[in-house]
């Protein structure tokens, strides 16, 4: 696996040894392609950790009323169900928003590697902290007006996709639907149209033909009050 988005991301936090890189890569199996709108994981108890290698997926929960809330996007290189938190986390599903390439890892073997390799231990710890940090920022982002909330999400995606070389300086391919984004922002499927139009007419964002363009990244960041520190890409600790 050359240009592995998982390792690329981990190495933002930790310099892995050759052994550690090899050990992690040897852990993956069952590579498959899932069509859009299919669940990657439904919260059943298994020893599997899922690693998305390409495509866009999301962690989500559907309320009895049918409302879906996307609580985070899953980008290439992201792990799902890394920890088994018991019954507590199992109501959360992971679904492919676009066709996704996915591999599995054995959780028990991953835990074994964490015990054996300090670099892997530190890297997985970083992934966990990062998830928590991002979840916290999403809660805070819900407090912003909807247009700034969308601006913040797009700033986040730009940074995260740049790390895995899936975004250039001013934009990225974004083949998800507006409804997906509305469900990630917690706004109605009608209101997302207005919010997008507002950012478009301000010249801050263009989103067409599945491509997002941000002509003035600093301008959008200022508008969104976006500070990428919470994404922890500058590593962690002293």
């Amino acid at each position, binding site marked *: 696996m050359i240009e592995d988005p998982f390792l690329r991301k981990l190495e933002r936090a930790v310099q892995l040894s050759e052994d550690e890189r090899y050990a992690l890569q040897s852990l993956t199996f069952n590579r498959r392609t899932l069509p859009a709108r299919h669940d990657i994981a439904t919260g059943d108890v298994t020893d599997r950790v899922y690693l998305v290698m390409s495509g866009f997926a999301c962690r989500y929960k559907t309320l009895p009323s049918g409302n879906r809330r996307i609580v985070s996007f899953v980008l290439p290189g992201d792990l799902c169900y890394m920890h088994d938190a018991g019954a507590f986390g199992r109501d959360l599903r992971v679904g492919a928003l676009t066709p996704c390439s996915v591999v599995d890892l054995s959780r028990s073997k991953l835990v074994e590697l964490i015990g054996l390799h300090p670099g892997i231990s530190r890297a997985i710890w970083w992934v966990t902290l990062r998830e928590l940090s991002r979840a916290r920022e999403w809660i805070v982002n819900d407090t912003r007006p909807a247009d700034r909330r969308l601006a913040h999400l797009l700033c986040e995606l730009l940074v995260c996709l740049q790390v895995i070389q899936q975004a250039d300086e001013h934009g990225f391919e974004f083949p998800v639907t507006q409804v997906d984004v509305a469900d990630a922002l917690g706004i109605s499927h009608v209101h997302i149209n207005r919010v997008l139009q*507002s950012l478009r007419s301000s010249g801050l964002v263009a989103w067409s033909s599945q491509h997002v363009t941000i002509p003035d990244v600093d301008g959008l960041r200022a508008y969104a009050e976006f500070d990428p520190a919470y994404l922890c890409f500058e590593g962690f600790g002293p």
Partner: protein
Amino acid sequence: MDNITLQPVQIASLCADTDGRIAFADGKLVAVLVRLSEELHGADGRAGQWCVEVGFGACDVGVLSVRFDGLDAARRWIAERMAMATTD
């Protein structure tokens, strides 16, 4: 059944969705309806529909986009919600 009235109103939404109705049940404000514009919602096939932008009490819809093809349907929905609230 409650007496449902819909009063035309212009909404300063800063976008093309400006045509609205404020809905009263027995004289009390229960919802604000917005007519979805061609400019913003034509591509979704929703232009011309009436959407519950905000509802109060029995008409609270959260972030759901509850929509109707016409105002009569909206009026019936409000009446049903009010009736359900009083029989609960």
